[in-house]
């Protein structure tokens, strides 16, 4: 789960990390009031789930409350990489002597988190990795031990030669690890970690990704989910326990299993069509799930053909068939449906479908071709 900068900074502050104060608002007038409260120069920052806000004009300096109002007004409603800005963070500006980077990501090839720091902060770490790879320092973390004190110190000396600064940075890295581990994050980043002219260190930007699978033990973090930022249909799918991602095509796909769902999308493309979505109705799917799935697919106006591809294993084909019958009787469907069913309780399913005027096929390629043709 992605969270916003202002939320990540709240987690930072809860872990005693030096994130500057800030308040979030959806209103330009309030942005101006916040700026007045802080006094002096502030930064107004778009809160959206994507990088590259700065380049897109989503981050603006404001010298006084009036400028803050103007900045907020310009940013709110802005479209950044397809996402609408609904909130801005107003935060006192910090003087910058130099910028560093500190982050923790999961290294899949080593089955463990890796801590990364670079004295080259402020830009995308991927850009640094390309342009100046020797400026990135990595420390794999033994998950049973966590970040060891000497590792924090060693990383800190990669950023600062001065013992006083290195000591402070080591403390910050230690707390960053605790924030990462304590929140079950899969990614955390301070970029830039700013050194001020009077040698203070400040986390000027904060990014965090939380492990969806671990949210059950963090109800407070689950509340940070920005349901507004989600696509409506994706939210609906999540709430129904379905895995759904909207795409640009016109063939709506309803499949059981993520791998088969991807393979089905690929096959739609292979036969000249364009998949409208990824949708996995999951393992033990009840008729209810099928109803929700069909609702979500038909809510998408681009969909001009619907394809069911079900391989019954734990999923029972008759459950899916019942779901299709139920959903089509409730919804006023005006797009053609192609159904492919095979596996557990296939016979019962075919009978249910036939009894309700549906045809079903058993070959995946044929079904996909039919659905692509139906989309026209």
């Amino acid at each position: 789960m992605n969270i916003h900068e202002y939320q990540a900074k709240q987690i930072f502050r809860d872990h005693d990390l030096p994130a500057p104060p800030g308040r979030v608002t959806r209103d330009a007038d309030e942005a101006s009031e916040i700026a007045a409260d802080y006094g002096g120069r502030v930064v107004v920052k778009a809160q959206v789930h994507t990088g590259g806000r700065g380049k897109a004009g989503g981050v603006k300096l404001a010298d006084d409350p009036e400028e803050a109002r103007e900045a907020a007004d310009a940013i709110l409603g802005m479209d950044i990489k397809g996402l609408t800005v609904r909130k801005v963070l107003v935060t006192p500006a910090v003087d910058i002597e130099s910028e560093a980077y500190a982050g923790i990501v999961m290294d899949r090839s080593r089955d463990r988190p890796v801590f990364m720091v670079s004295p080259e902060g402020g830009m995308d770490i991927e850009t640094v990795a390309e342009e100046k790879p020797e400026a990135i320092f990595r420390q794999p973390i033994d998950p049973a031990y966590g970040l060891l004190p000497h590792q924090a110190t060693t990383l800190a000396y990669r950023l600062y030669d001065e013992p006083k600064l290195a000591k402070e940075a080591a403390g910050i890295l230690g707390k960053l690890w605790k924030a990462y581990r304590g929140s079950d994050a899969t990614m955390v980043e301070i970029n830039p970690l700013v050194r001020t002219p009077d040698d203070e260190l400040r986390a000027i930007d904060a990014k965090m990704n939380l492990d969806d699978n671990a949210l059950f033990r963090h109800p407070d973090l689950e509340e940070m989910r920005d349901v507004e930022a989600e696509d409506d249909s994706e939210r609906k799918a999540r709430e129904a326990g379905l895995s759904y991602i909207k795409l640009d095509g016109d063939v709506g796909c309803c499949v059981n299993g993520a791998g088969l769902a991807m393979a089905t999308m690929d096959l739609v493309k292979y036969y000249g069509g364009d998949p409208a979505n990824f949708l996995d109705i999951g393992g033990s799917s009840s008729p209810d799930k099928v109803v929700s799935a069909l609702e979500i697919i038909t809510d998408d106006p681009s969909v001009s053909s619907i394809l069911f591809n079900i391989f019954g294993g734990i999923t029972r084909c008759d459950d899916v068939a019942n779901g299709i019958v139920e959903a089509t009787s409730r919804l006023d469907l005006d797009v053609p449906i192609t159904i492919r069913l095979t596996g557990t309780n296939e016979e019962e399913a075919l009978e249910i479908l036939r009894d309700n005027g549906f045809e079903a096929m058993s070959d995946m390629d044929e079904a996909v071709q039919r659905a692509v043709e139906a989309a026209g």
Partner: protein
Amino acid sequence: MSILIGDDTRLVVQGITGRDGSFHARRMREYGTNVVAGVTPGKGGQLFDDEVPVFNTMAQAVEETGANASVIYVPAAFASGAIYEAADAGVDLVVCITEGLPVGDMTRVMPYLEERGTRLIGPNCPGLIVPGSCKVGILPGSIVEEGPVGIVSRSGTLTYEVIHQLTGAGIGQSTCVGIGGDPIIGTDFVDALEMFEADDRTEAVVLIGEIGGTDEQVAARYAEEQMETPVVGFVAGQTAPPGRTMGHAGAIISGSEGTAEEKMRVFEEHGVSVAERPADIVPAIQTVL
């Protein structure tokens, strides 16, 4: 012959009294798997289906029955605990069907298992099946057939699809292994390929990958350098957008390395036959057999 499981497997079902555990324990027994015990804390002393003793702890189950493998059907919040418990009880093989394990839990589980020499399959996997002999997990027994092809896959139903097509074409399987769709898994492609290479019944291997990570690339290099057995590869997710998690927690493209195109390119580069569609797998296998 087979890999990982077979007629000598003495299986404990962890979570046998739960909804999924009891359902699949029955399916496994029907298939002929030797389910020697079940474990559910607090339900020790019961008999499952009048025959299989239930214990409170894995340690007791292993002591009393000489079990050497376990399969886990417990909720995600308790699944890593069940894996640790199985490792401490001394079984050689642990198959974790449960999906939704926090990745942080898995990072800590892995070195614990490695130190103890315990092999994990999964989590978030369908398990494995040796046609005609033994099934551990949830793979449907009805679609498999004895034969010479080993199957290793990150998917569930896509694997069933491939098996179904192979069986339909008269090509049986030696062992089918679903290694799971999570970013951190116990047994990876290379581990499975190594075992298939050593298995004298397996004459060809189908490797079913998907987007995310670089395990397919590593496997391709391994196949070229260490294997005589031919490998046919398929990669799901050619149309998947980058940066989105496609159902499986591990199926997410970050950077250029994790794309299906790249994986298929590397397959080809290292002599792994590439199947563009699932339906291309059967002819590809017929060619190499």
